[in-house]
């Protein structure tokens, strides 16, 4: 994939918003079947324009209005906010206190920088294949819980475009959840606690809740390859000191005699299992081995993103201005194969489009074909296509659910 040049953004975005952005699917999502009046019209969007100009409380009448505005303003970033009591673009005309955020999807933001204390390969905004596994594990663990524990059916996972992933939970009942319940859900999903000054960040009590047990089972599948080989967390003194601080016995000599992280981990497991039987030991509980695994692998969520109903989050299919990558949906069936480095950049798909257009101009073109039809075919010919397909699959499930609910409701009313 060619390198992306941020200075080309204005031109690229123009083309992207005119020919490639999947408006009809996007509208289909946020309109939610038109079941609730004005649901789309009361939705807040925010745009970040060139030169970092940020405008909030954008709202649109329908799909075509959305298209026109996006093409006109050419936003560098698009965020999606809540559905309000009134049209956000008229919020200044509303009586003070009457303009309220009412519903929004439950969202999660998992950011690689939150793991800087446990990854050796990269730090801050950088990512690489070695640490991306953290995101894979996070998606598996969180998604399982959202689906099996909470019963949420419509979960859209999206690559953020640089160093993390987002999740949008779109079930009807979920959109209505209060801030308190959202906070509670994040709490349920949290295990790693403490900032820089805290050495041991995971403390398990004697009883292991099913959520924790199932999460550990997921981590076990990845741990050896991710932590002991790729991250090599017990490679040398610098890295193993952090872990030795969590372990009661002095196994330093054993560590020094061993040759690699795998061997050292075996020694550590032996020590940890001794803790399991020694209940009197207050500082080192019975689950030491798991606590270390969790500290190094368990997902870290930002509660502020999830708890606020009016929180604005980056929109799927928006472009990341620094990397040029499109925020694409992630196929849950293929989450292990997802590679952020193969996600198309805006420059790549624009070049693809150009190449295709040139080819097509040479063929005979039916002039009567509408611009829209043109556009709906366009993205299909680029590398964006498979991701839009994932999105459509998600939308079909939403539709099916809605039809099912309406049917149930009409049956009830009929009776």
């Amino acid at each position, binding site marked *: 994939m060619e390198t992306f040049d941020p200075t080309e953004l204005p031109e690229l975005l123009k083309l992207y918003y005119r020919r490639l952005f999947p408006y009809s699917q996007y509208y289909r999502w946020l309109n939610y079947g038109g079941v609730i009046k004005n649901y789309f019209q009361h939705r807040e969007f925010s745009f970040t324009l060139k030169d970092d100009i940020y405008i909030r409380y954008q709202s649109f009448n329908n799909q075509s209005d959305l298209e026109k505005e996006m093409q006109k303003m050419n936003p560098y970033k698009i965020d999606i906010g809540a559905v309000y009591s009134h049209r956000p673009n008229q919020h200044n005309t509303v009586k003070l206190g009457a303009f309220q955020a009412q519903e929004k999807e439950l969202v999660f933001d998992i950011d690689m920088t939150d793991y800087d204390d446990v990854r050796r390969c990269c730090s801050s905004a950088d990512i690489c294949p070695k640490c991306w596994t953290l995101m894979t594990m996070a998606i598996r663990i969180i998604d399982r819980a959202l689906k099996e*524990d909470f019963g949420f059916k419509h979960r859209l996972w999206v690559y953020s475009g640089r160093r993390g992933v987002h999740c949008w939970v779109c079930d009807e009942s979920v959109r209505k959840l209060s801030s308190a319940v959202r906070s509670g859900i994040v709490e349920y999903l949290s295990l790693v606690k403490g900032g820089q000054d805290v050495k041991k960040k995971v403390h398990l009590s004697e009883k292991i*809740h099913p959520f924790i*047990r199932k999460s550990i089972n997921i981590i076990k599948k990845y741990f050896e390859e991710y932590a002991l080989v790729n991250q090599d967390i017990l490679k040398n003194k610098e890295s193993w000191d952090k872990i030795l601080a969590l372990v009661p016995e002095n196994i330093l000599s054993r560590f020094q005699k061993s040759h690699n992280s795998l061997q050292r981990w075996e020694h550590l497991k032996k020590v940890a299992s001794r803790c399991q039987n020694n209940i009197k030991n207050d500082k080192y509980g019975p689950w030491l081995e798991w606590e270390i695994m969790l500290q190094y692998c368990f997902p870290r969520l930002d509660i502020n993103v999830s708890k606020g109903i009016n929180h604005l989050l980056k929109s799927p299919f928006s472009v990341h201005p620094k990397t040029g990558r499109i925020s694409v949906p992630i196929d849950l069936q293929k989450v292990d194969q997802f590679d952020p480095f193969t996600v198309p950049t805006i420059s790549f798909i624009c070049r693809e489009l150009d190449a295709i257009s040139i080819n097509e101009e040479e063929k005979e073109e039916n002039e009567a074909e509408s611009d829209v039809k043109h556009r709906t075919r366009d993205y299909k010919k680029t590398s964006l296509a498979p991701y839009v397909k994932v999105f459509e699959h998600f939308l079909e499930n939403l539709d099916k659910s809605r039809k099912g609910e309406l049917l149930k409701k009409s049956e009830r009313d009929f009776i």
Partner: protein
Amino acid sequence: MEFSKKKWRMPRLAGDQRNASYPHCLQFYLQPPSENISLIEFENLAIDRVKLLKSVENLGVSYVKGTEQYQSKLESELRKLKFSYRENLEDEYEPRRRDHISHFILRLAYCQSEELRRWFIQQEMDLLRFRFSILPKDKIQDFLKDSQLQFEAISDEEKTLREQEIIASSPNSSGSKVVLESIYKIPFADALDLFRGRKVYLEDGFAYVPLKDIVAIILNEFRAKLSKALALTARSLPAVQSDERLQPLLNHLSHSYTGQDYSTQGNVGKISLDQIDSLSTKSFPPCMRQLHKALRENHHLRHGGRMQYGLFLKGIGLTLEQALQFWKQEFIKGKMDPDKFDKGYSYNIRHSFGKEGKRTDYTPFSCLKIILSNPPSQGDYHGCPFRHSDPELLKQKLQSYKISPGGISQILDLAKGTHYQVACQKYFEMIHNVDDCGFSLNHPNQFFCESQRILNGGKDIKKEPIQPETPQPKPSIQKAKDASSALASLNSSLEMDMEGLEDYFSEDS
């Protein structure tokens, strides 16, 4: 919002129909009452319920909730005031009806401020928790169903399928207990406090809650519903307050009418300053006795002590003039400059009598207030000795008061068990030489009144003719007289029926 003009007459219910309207001894108060009652019954029900809730509060401080002592005392209180508490008793219609109506009346009085609402909700929750705790297991399911809560107990098969998960999720229960207990399946969002801390098993959007945890959830539901209802009621308040029949009653109620905030005294001016020394040993509770002693010895008290003791003295009947004289005399003995006193301290005394600034007539501190707020530090003498004194020091104090060793050890045990007011009651019993003090202590001035009653041979101080030392007419007495005469005239017009009140509680108004 008008009083509805329709005359709703609830037909006189016979036998089974009466039981049908109140199928349980407890309820969530979801439906307001719709019958007519007389003004007198309105007032009496309200007063009785306030007494009940005050007892609930008191017992909650004196005893650990849920213990046998707590339960039996609360039960006897409920029986005494003729409110419902237990299933399967005879003639339950009347107590349940009283419970129902009185709750709604108090909503009118206690919706008026954040503090009142909080207090009301807390006591009602404690009351519900008690009633629920003595509900027989087989009645629980029925009660939940009737209360429109979506809680269903799962079948044994379903329990077995999930047994391991449920055991692993419940912090305190062991395997065997789970097998025996009922498990309730409720939507996860209704079990917020449980699932956020991973204290319950979640599956497919439902929380599988053992019986013992269901109580917490039910109480939360109740609190949420009641809180919302009070907010709604508050909106109707202007209309309620404009009703002349209700206004004095409701004001009276929310100022904790049990007659005992001791601010509108009928005994003003009956105490002379030279009686105080002897009264302090005979009729003062230990907190005030020690403050008085410290004042006499040091010729000074710090702010906390001046507030607590000064308001108490106002409560037992000191006039403003007496108070000024009292404090000044004592402070001067401590070599204070009289002018400095006038400048610095007299203002505060006048302020606490409502003669300066906001002109709030501050009420003497209740036991709870003294126990829970503003703990004393070095050089302070205020607070509650049973709460704030070191046990050794407390023992010495009691010995100096000539309490018998047996009595002292009982008192110390009670104090150690945080039953401070009960310890004080014991002190009362010891110095008055009675077996049972006969009241539930919640206010230092109450201690004084009860003590005086015993020492003066049962005569209530309030009924004695007023002989003020200074010729000033006390405005507060006047007000008290007006209030009671207003009530009296109301009582006489009591055949008027209370109608349409249920509209104040409904959402559509």
